[in-house]
């Protein structure tokens, strides 16, 4: 299950990124040729960018060291307090993104009645990227919680 989710997110990130690169290249090619630049390319590239970010945000948490934190004070804490922090931080991140994902669903439903300006599709599809951010960060925070507690019991 975990592997499948990771794979889906990786494929999602790669497809959206290549799509974004293709859209911007299309803009450039059209500008320097006889073709007129399609008006939807800018919107499409922005949406693909947001999707690429949403797919990659959870993967970044999974791999640790992508989300920068301040180590200076942490190094001064005693090992017991550090252990408490190591366990509690993923819990707080889980709660933060669980709330985020819940309200992202409402945000998506708000988007259902909107149409995108140039491509004319349902904005709910675009807003869905916010749910992906909330859900995937929540998912990988949960894995960090499980890992932290397994470490303790071991």
């Amino acid at each position, binding site marked *: 299950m975990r592997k499948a989710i990771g794979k889906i997110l990786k494929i999602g990130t790669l497809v959206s990124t290549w799509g974004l690169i293709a859209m911007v290249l299309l803009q450039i090619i059209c500008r320097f040729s006889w073709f007129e630049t399609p008006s939807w390319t800018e919107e499409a590239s922005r949406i693909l960018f947001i999707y690429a970010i949403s797919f990659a945000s959870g993967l970044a948490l999974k791999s640790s060291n992508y989300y920068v934190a301040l180590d200076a004070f942490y190094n001064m804490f005693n090992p017991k307090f550090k252990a408490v922090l190591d366990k509690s931080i993923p819990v707080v*991140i889980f709660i933060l993104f669980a709330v985020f994902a819940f309200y992202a669903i409402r945000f998506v439903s708000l988007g259902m009645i909107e149409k995108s300006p140039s491509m004319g599709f349902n904005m709910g599809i675009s807003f869905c990227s916010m749910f992906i951010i909330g859900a995937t960060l929540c998912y990988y925070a949960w894995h960090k919680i499980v890992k932290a507690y397994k470490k303790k019991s071991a």
Partner: protein
Amino acid sequence: MIWILVIVFVVALVLRYPIAFALGLACLVYLIGAEIPLILMPMKMYSGIDVFVLLSIPGFIIAGNLMNQGGLTEKIISFCNHLMGHIRGGLSLVNIGASMLFAGISGTAISDTASMGSVMIPAMKKEGYDADFSCAVTAASSTVGPIIPPSVPMIIAATLSGLSVGKLFLAGAIPGLLLGVGLMLVAYFIARKKNYPKHPKSSFGQVARGFVDTFWSLLMTFIILFGIIGGIFTPTEASIVAVLYALVVGRLVYKKLNFKNVQVVILDSMKTSASLMILVGFANLFGYILITEHIPQTISNEILGFSSNKYVVLLLINLLLIAVGTFMETIAALLILFPILLKVAIAVDVDPIHFAVIAVLNLIIGLTTPPVGVCLFVASSIGKVSIGKVSKAGFPFLLVSLGVLILVTLIPEISLWLPNLFTD
């Protein structure tokens, strides 16, 4: 209520929450306390990252990483070594020179310290340089990266203020070069005093071969810069052209790229970009809360109430930004403080482009300021030297950086000459 936002944010930072999540957590607690609908969180996150110019950030990161996959770091170091290795303390000059060339590729100070440091610090130690000096040079030189174009902090400043990315890139070029040359002079004088080693002089052929090896990466910086300035590309288009260019060079010239490692590089670059964009999204919400609480006006009134003298105001802003830059990551600090302080700077007739350079320079100098400068930590952990020793060895470099900051603050032409020249 605003105190809750600030306290939660600071406490979360101190407790080592990732900065992006500390911002998000502070906003969540504030919104609950102020009984504001929580749907604002995804809404502001979306509007924060739904900005066309931000698309250039993953583009530049992917292009830089693709170039690096072709062994660019080693090639740049080798070229600088042929060029400056024969001077006393040559490797320290190579370290700084390579950071200046690498600057156009990496765009962030911490990644520069890590990538350059992992190669240069062991090499310098092996040749008999003191470990603390090696770490200090690496940390100091990596601050040149974020100011020399293409610069990620400059793109963020442009997004926040609506300023031209091209003009901001140009504005950072001379201060970046000044900083680099200043650091080289200090390294040279220390090297002479400590009698650090030098290499035999390279032949013209070796220098020429080194140049050819790095030429393609240098050309990428020029394509980006002149493409934007010449009005040929938007910054986003320039970044994607850079990706295409890096793919072609990496495949046909360096012959190191294949289908598999390109996907790995893209995935890695997008994870970096995603962590930055989550930060941008939450900072957008954080900024919105500050505005609804009239914080920018309050801070502006407080500073201008203390003094309306341009130089006193700039001095206060410099002190604040260096202090913040010492413990906070450049982009996070820029996202939170730049829009607020820009208003104050404009009120005392400081050119916004000049101010953007001052702000970025302050924040990157903070990265090497003891006791908690992030680059000092990265360099000291690579060199396995205590942070205290690295801080002490880095003090002369810090003084030079502060000297450049004072020059850039007092003489706006250093930042504005190039953008004005090209605009005119």
